[in-house]
């Protein structure tokens, strides 16, 4: 009788082994070497709440794509909805929107350097110098100020609007101009905030149309803002999207190009290297010279059933890279065109390739 009790005790304490490896397998492990030459990062969002975002790297010289480089090198997944990234100095800073953090990796060998955690819903990172950078956010009404060398949060800029039911203001993209930082307030909002980067305070705000989504500054130092117009049932409003040209010194709107239909959903506004031509996706890819007097009527690259999702122009040779999200569930494809809209190349990447970044 007593022996049974002893046996029980033995059994209870005997099994204490632990497995300390990941319980999942990601992708195929390609060998990664340090890549110092020119390349293009493709940031794949994955699906919301699934945690399956990933980072791909396209070597422009070798015309080779390597997928899942973050996991391959660092043995841990990138996180949930990787929103955007920026290359500065030796590092690349990746905002992982639904994981509340920014990952910092070495831009050549992709190894993990540091992380900035505790954020709410980080969207974009902009870096002024080696001591100061900003992280925008979709839910907190604050822009975080951080040190890109020590990776610490050093302060916050409060951009809250207590009078609104729409949790304003949120911050999205950020562009430097002199001592100013232009920030678009996209979610349920219609403003561009102007922030003084020495005092870290709002000095002006520009009223634009509903939901400004993207911004670029062209060769004439004009600020271009693309609004998405809201959507059916949006409590803040629903109108035609527009492309708005703003003077960066006076903050006055110089010209507004309104799209024909509310159902248009233009996005992914970007510039070529010389800053004289705008490109955007509105189902198809369109191009528009900065001194144009009207919106383009003919497409530059037709979608032909593809789901164009994000885009970038190579500043060196004006190649155009556009991603196809396919069905938002399967892995996406990147198409590379030359400046004459001729297809040069295509390659498969991760799920929902939503952001490009050159290094």
């Amino acid at each position, binding site marked *: 009788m007593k022996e*049974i009790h002893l046996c029980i005790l033995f059994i*209870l304490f005997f099994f204490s082994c632990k497995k300390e490896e990941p319980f999942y397998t990601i*992708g*195929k492990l390609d060998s990664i070497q340090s890549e110092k030459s020119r390349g293009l990062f493709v940031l794949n969002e994955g699906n919301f709440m*699934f945690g399956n975002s990933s980072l791909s790297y396209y070597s422009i010289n070798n015309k080779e794509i390597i997928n899942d480089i973050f996991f391959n090198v660092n043995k841990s*997944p990138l996180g949930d909805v990787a929103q955007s990234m920026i290359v500065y100095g030796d590092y690349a800073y990746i905002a992982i929107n639904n994981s509340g953090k920014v990952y910092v990796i070495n831009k050549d060998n992709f190894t993990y350097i540091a992380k900035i955690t505790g954020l709410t819903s980080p969207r974009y990172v902009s870096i002024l110098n080696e001591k100061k950078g900003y992280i925008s956010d979709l*839910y907190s*009404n604050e822009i975080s100020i951080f040190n890109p060398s020590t990776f610490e949060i050093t302060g916050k800029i409060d951009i809250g609007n207590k009078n609104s039911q729409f949790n304003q203001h949120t911050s999205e993209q950020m562009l430097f101009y002199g001592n100013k930082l232009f920030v678009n307030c996209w979610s349920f909002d219609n403003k561009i905030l102007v922030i003084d980067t020495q005092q870290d305070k709002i000095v002006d705000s520009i009223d634009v149309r509903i939901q400004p989504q993207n911004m670029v500054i062209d060769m004439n130092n004009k600020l271009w803002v693309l609004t998405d117009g809201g959507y059916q049932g949006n409590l803040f409003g629903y109108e035609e999207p527009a492309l708005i040209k703003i003077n960066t010194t006076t903050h006055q709107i110089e010209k507004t190009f309104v799209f024909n239909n509310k159902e248009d959903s233009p996005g992914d506004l970007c510039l070529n290297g010389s800053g004289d031509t705008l490109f955007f996706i509105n189902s198809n890819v369109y191009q528009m010279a900065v001194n144009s007097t009207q919106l383009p009527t003919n497409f530059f690259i037709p979608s032909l059933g593809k789901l164009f999702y994000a885009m970038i122009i190579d500043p060196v040779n004006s190649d155009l890279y556009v991603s196809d999200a396919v069905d938002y569930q399967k892995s996406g494809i990147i198409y590379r065109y030359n400046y004459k809209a001729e297809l040069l190349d295509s390659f498969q990447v991760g799920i929902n390739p939503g952001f490009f970044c050159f290094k």
Partner: protein
Amino acid sequence: MIKNLLIIVILFICINIFSSDITDSLQLNEVVITASRSLQNSALFKVTIDSFVIKQNKENSLSDLLTNNSSVFIKSYGRGSLSTASFRGTSASHTQVLWNGIKINSPMIGQTDFSIIPVFFIDQLQILQGGSSIIESSGALGGTIVLENQPEWNKKFEMTINQEIASFHTYGTFAGITLGNEKWQTKTRCIYRSSLNDFKYYNTTVIPYRYDIQKDADYYQYALQQELYRKIDTKNTISFVLFGQYNDRNLPKIMSYEGGKIDESQQDKNIRSTLTWNSFINQKINVQVQTAYAYDNLQYYRYFNQFNYINNDSRSFSNSFFNNLEINYSISKNTIIKPGVDYNYYKASIFDYAPVIQSGYNKERNEISFYTALIHRFNSKIVANVLVRQEIVDTKDIPIIPMLGIEYKFIQDKDFFLKINVARNYHYPTLNDLYWIPGGNPNLKPEKGYTADIGIDFKYKVITQNAVTKLSSFVSQIDDWISWMPTEARYWQAMNLKEVFSRGVEWYQKIDGKLLKLNYTVIFNYAFTLTSDNYSLKSADENRNHQLPYIPKNKYNLFTKLEWKHFYFSYNHIFVDKRYTSPTSENNPVEIILNHHYLNNISIGRKIKVKKNEFDLQIKIDNLLNTDYQAILFRAMPGRYYTFTLQYKI
């Protein structure tokens, strides 16, 4: 924790040492009763979960019981979190759950959350596979799980109280009382369970890897069930069952989350009641009339504390009324005809009060179903079971739902049957699929499923031991499978999209008997499922024939129970094969695969009887080998944990 465990183990040992002097309870051998096989359930593919398996899991939720002891695959978001069933590669809304004859799947979502169904309230549990589910209702393209309560007319009085203490600050109290005589019986059962759920796990989704304690995953549940049975005379019985439960849980983040604090919680309130009158008009005719009501309330809340920002404040309510009349007419001893009619009415509303959402819907649904089953025994070997349903939902006719089953008895005196079952079934879109704002599609067609099953059902003896083998193979094709897909209009929309072809094998094996002085039972469930999605939407991959996400190709579980004098021991071994987590192909460079895993659970218990008082002490160790595993990608699961229960019964 180790200190607590040591105290419990020492207590356990002491009680055992001191109790050996007390009068032992009689250990009765299990008697196997082979009644003549009734005609009613011929040619159906169904598995009955053994009653001691139900007892073994009485402190658990139905989710744990099914995962560990059946061929149904349960997809769980974590301990205490949402658990849905995936039956033969179909989706959660294709598995219907019946509680005492009424459908309890939410009319809005179409699913049932198995994690909040307490096993303590279940007397009988059966699984109807594939087309066999049509005998109870339409729409269960994968199958139906049948929960039943029954009177125990022999029991005049019984009272049980159960106290459970388990790891991660988990506590449960379970109590029940039964009173009655030959004419009436009342049964009351209630539960209170709570858990902090602060388990430790090894987090390999952050850099550097580290041990984390699960946060924001606490939950508690109150539940009550009242049954009343009345035998008016030898021909008429009335039963009434009332169930109510309240479940409150915090929802944890995925493992890779390292951001600011977000509160996410869900409250579930359910009330169900059913009144049934069963009458034997004469020896040939039996009539059953049932009326039932169910109330479901689900609240989901997501809140950013730092900024006082409510992201979601969704409240949904549904009131469902069920009515059924069924006549069971034995025309002769070889033929039974069962006509019946169902009339169900649902009223549902949902609204999200978050300042930037402020939308919802308010809708009703009427369902009428006429059905007839005809069961005929051709000769001593062959029985056919034909059933036809005609359904009308909101004045729309659904095409006829037929089922044909044939049973063939191989050898005269042996319990060895060959069964075939073919059926066509329709699943009507849920209220959310039709009316959700934005994205609901009122033009959706019902999902259509064809199933065919073939199998053998064999009860036999191996030397002196009893054995049961149920081996079946199935194919099923589901067209117009409703999927929510993101559209260019910035929101997701419901569409009749997929064409899913599933095929597989299910094997149920049971052996029980006595070896030396040990009573033992061994139950083995194995399921092999292959699914592929052939829908015609554009794809980057050439390879569309890819196992659907979260469907393992192989899964099995083995349950062994040993009884020796007053001791009992059980061991549960579970295997789940690898699962894909997205619809991409095998060759896809970024596919994330959840590796296969094994789980082991053991329990040791001791029964003590002091005159009429029965005590039952049990220690359970789940995940004995501390396996690191996930049911859903990046959602933490606990390692090894301990449960101590003490039951008093009189």
